[in-house]
């Protein structure tokens, strides 16, 4: 049953400062709404609990892609379409482009934002595995200033994040340090377009000969939040890539994964597929 729109308040303050002042005055009262591809679904199905919303969709201060020598900074209000159209992101972070391309349909990519995908904090969200593998940093902003933290510290639990009630996600910074890295991402769902992942894995690795000199693995739907698979990384780091390494990687990933049974899949299937995806990546490193 659809909600009665008249029961909800929505304002669109003209500037980011005005939005921050308003949420600082009454912390926790307002929910920010950007492209609406998540919150409007909740409204349409009668599940939208928040009654007071502030639109940040029109704020160009949050919609930017800044390319610097050492990193690319992406404003939280940047749409998936903006990301897909950016040549510097395509050149440096193909996994981010790939995950943006399978985030909903073209119409949803035109509205949905990278910040929304992160702050909605679904464990199955499409872009977090790539951002985790790339070692992204998030910058949060409030009326009193900005603070930055590793993205891997942002998700605290199921739909829980490090955002304080007076804060917004400002930007996501991805270090440009993956020249020569092998990169891999794969999403397993019911169909290519629109489907929510059963499980997804993003991996980057740097090889020195046949030794894994660096490896980072990000995953969706393997836990109650998007996670970096630190144990599997540690089990593989510095190892020669061979059958024993693949077995160790699989076993460690299985031991650190905490997937669940739900309408889209089962915990057993998710763990098995995640191991297969990791093996697929590791075998690609042998070539």
């Amino acid at each position, binding site marked *: 049953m659809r909600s009665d729109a008249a029961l909800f308040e929505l304002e669109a303050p003209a500037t980011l400062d005005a939005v921050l002042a308003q949420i600082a005055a009454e912390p926790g009262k307002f929910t920010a709404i950007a492209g609406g591809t998540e919150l409007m679904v909740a409204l349409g199905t009668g599940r939208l609990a928040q009654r007071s919303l502030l639109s940040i969709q029109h704020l160009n201060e949050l919609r930017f892609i800044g390319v610097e020598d050492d990193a690319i900074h992406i404003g939280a209000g940047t749409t998936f379409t903006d990301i897909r159209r950016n040549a510097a992101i395509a050149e440096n972070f193909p996994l981010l482009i790939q995950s943006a391309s399978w985030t909903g349909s073209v*119409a949803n990519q035109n509205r949905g934002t990278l910040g929304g995908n992160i702050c909605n904090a679904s464990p199955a969200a499409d872009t977090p595995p790539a951002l985790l593998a790339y070692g992204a940093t998030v910058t949060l902003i409030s009326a009193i200033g900005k603070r930055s933290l590793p993205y891997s510290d942002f998700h605290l639990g199921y739909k829980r994040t490090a955002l304080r009630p007076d804060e917004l996600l400002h930007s996501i910074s991805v270090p440009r340090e993956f020249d020569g890295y092998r990169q891999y991402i794969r999403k397993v769902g019911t169909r290519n377009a629109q489907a929510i992942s059963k499980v997804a894995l993003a991996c980057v690795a740097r090889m020195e000969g046949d030794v894994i000199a660096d490896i980072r693995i990000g995953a969706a739907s393997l836990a109650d939040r998007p996670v970096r698979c630190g144990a599997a990384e540690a089990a593989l780091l510095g190892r020669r890539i061979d059958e024993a390494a693949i077995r160790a990687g699989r076993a460690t990933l299985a031991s650190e994964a905490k997937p669940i049974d739900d309408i889209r899949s089962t915990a057993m299937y998710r763990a098995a597929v995640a191991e297969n995806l990791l093996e697929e990546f590791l075998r690609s490193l042998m070539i």
Partner: protein
Amino acid sequence: MANVKFNVNGCEKSIEVPPMKRLLDVLREDLHLTGTKEGCGEGECGACAVLLDGELVNSCLVPALQANGARLCTIEGVSTEGRLHPIQRCFLEKGGAQCGICTPGMILATHHLLDKYPEPTMEQIQEGLAGNLCRCTGYMRIFEAVQKAAAGGAR
């Protein structure tokens, strides 16, 4: 209530609506532009797709206030002076519509696709229309209609 002004199909409109009212409902209920359809109401089916400042959006997911100042194009604005747009003609000629519920969204998604890719590959057509579900045609006739529209200089 909020005052929302936008241009829809070339006409300036100014209306008083709840700011969180879905653009879909504003179009259908306040402006009586019922060509835009509601399918799933969750942004999955594309039946409610319209162009907002030239970008394809699902109008069921746009709060009215976020359309303030926008330029909108609905299916009613695609034809001119009672003459079908070439994309519409191609859908008609190729049998790209059966029950018709998905058709307004398909036409606008095609419009958006051909703006971006005047000569789309089959892969680009499939991706461009992946957010528009059709339960009748099996899609092949829709793809043929899009290809014909592209080949015939539909824009």
